[in-house]
């Protein structure tokens, strides 16, 4: 298991290689979607260059995602973001405007780097939550919730992201703490 959030300023060769591999895969897939196999040598060279550049520029530890865990997270994301869209559309069109906006502080239990970035970005697409700001050096997320009940998706999303990155199960107190 990788150790949790210690800010790594110097990355080893191995870690930079992991970064390069991840970025390479993403760039190749992007090229295939945009151009198919047309001009693939150019795509290959470009993807290699992009991978090398990002490995060189990387500042945090890479967090590789076990590929088998991606489909389940993707499905979760699509379903939850659809619920989010439906929920906010319903509230926006409802004559009584049933919202009760409020801020909450949520202590993140995710390591720096990709897991946190994913959390902050995806949370704004979950039902009723919006990541407003990171405080305390990135440890505390200020969440804007449309309703008090919306905070449940923060806990749920964090648990799903921990599972996606193959981090150990959340300690139980993390589940209870931020609700309401």
């Amino acid at each position, binding site marked *: 298991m990788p150790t949790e959030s210690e800010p790594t300023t110097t990355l080893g060769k191995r870690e930079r290689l992991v970064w390069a591999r991840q970025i390479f895969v993403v760039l190749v897939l992007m090229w295939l979607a945009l151009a198919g196999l047309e001009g693939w040598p150019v795509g290959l060279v470009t993807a290699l260059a992009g991978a090398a550049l990002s490995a060189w520029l990387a500042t945090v530890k890479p967090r590789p995602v076990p590929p088998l865990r991606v489909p389940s997270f993707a499905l979760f994301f699509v379903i939850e973001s659809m619920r989010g*869209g439906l929920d906010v559309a319903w509230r926006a069109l409802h004559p009584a405007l049933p919202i009760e906006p409020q801020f909450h502080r949520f202590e993140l239990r995710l390591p720096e780097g990709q897991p946190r970035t994913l959390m902050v970005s995806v949370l704004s697409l979950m039902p009723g939550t919006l990541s407003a700001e990171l405080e305390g050096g990135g440890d505390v997320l200020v969440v804007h919730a449309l309703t008090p009940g919306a905070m449940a998706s923060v806990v749920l999303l964090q648990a799903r992201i921990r599972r996606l990155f193959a981090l150990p199960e959340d300690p139980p107190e993390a589940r209870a703490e931020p609700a309401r």
Partner: protein
Amino acid sequence: MSPSASTLPGDWIGIALLLLGCAFYGAGTAGLLRFPDVYSRLHALTKADNQGLLLVCAGLAVLARSWRVAALLGVIWLLGLMAAAVSAHLIARHARHSGSRRTSSEERP
């Protein structure tokens, strides 16, 4: 990709998805106009509009009948998602820093 003049049954699914997508864009705009503060408006813009984008992309993919086009639309959707999520966070953070911490009820610790 068959350029047939008559409408195929699958096309109606595509058209229905497009119309549904437009309805979500409409709801997002309604939220932008009706919600009381900058944060609540961001909810409507990010979530409803991305739902709209997903449905419009799905509708276009059905109409195009091509996996290549579908993959491209998938990339477009993902880029749209990323842009929406990042810009919503940046606008919300800016709003908090510029002192507009107002939301309909007060801040909880």
